């Protein structure tokens, strides 16, 4: 690994160890992709790229769900009892 990369960010005094740790935290959040070579040495760029894609996927899911809910909205009751039921399902 080139040390030039870390020198670029040295103005913020971030240690390479910190970055590696944060990246591994991120990687654990990403959905598992069946890779033939999924060893720990995936580059920072790859992790960030996968993270971007994952966030875009999540945004799209929220969009689709909002769309679905807008169609269903007529059936969603203002009844507090039902809301309580849902809450109990979710929590």
């Amino acid at each position, binding site marked *: 690994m*080139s040390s*030039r*990369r870390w020198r*670029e*960010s040295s103005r*913020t005094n*971030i240690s390479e160890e*910190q*970055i590696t740790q*944060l*990246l591994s*935290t*991120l990687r654990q*959040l990403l959905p598992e992709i069946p890779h033939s070579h999924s060893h720990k040495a995936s*580059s*920072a*760029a790859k992790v*960030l*790229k996968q*993270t*971007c894609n*994952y*966030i*875009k996927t*999540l*945004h799209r*899911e*929220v*969009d689709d*769900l*909002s*769309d*679905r*809910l*807008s*169609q*269903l*909205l*007529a*059936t*969603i009751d*203002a009844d507090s009892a039902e*809301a309580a039921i*849902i*809450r109990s*399902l*979710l*929590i």
Partner: protein
Amino acid sequence: MNNPHHLNPTSLKSRFTTRFLRALTKIRAQKPISSSSPTEIFRRYRRIKAAADKSMAYSVRSRRIWSRAMLWKLRSRSYRRQDPCSGRRSGKTNQAIMKKSSNENTTTRREDGVGFVEEADELRQLVPGGETMNLCNLLDETAHYIKCLTTQVQVMKKIADFYSF
């Protein structure tokens, strides 16, 4: 100062769920649902989406950079809407923070191997408030943001499924 990395999913989930359900009820009460014109549905869709983001941002409050940025954006947008002189255009469309990234075809890798700068910049556009973050904050905020997004999706899915039957 910063909370430890583990999020309490139960309480965030319940805070979000409560707020979001309340918002849905309000949206439903706003207009008679009998009119299901495409325009109406689209408006409802926009309101629901905004309610989802708002509910999440308010559930996290100002504990995070990204939630502060989102709250600021939501408040300035609603402030603008109340202003009669603001015209019909809704909000800033140039800030592509929550929208699709425009950098689909990017990443000409530089020669010196600092290859992840472009990816980091792309990430900055996806995470609210990302432009102001240094790399360390960006990674940290992104992790929390992703956790919250997955919670949001989870809850919305359960609600939609519940009312689909």
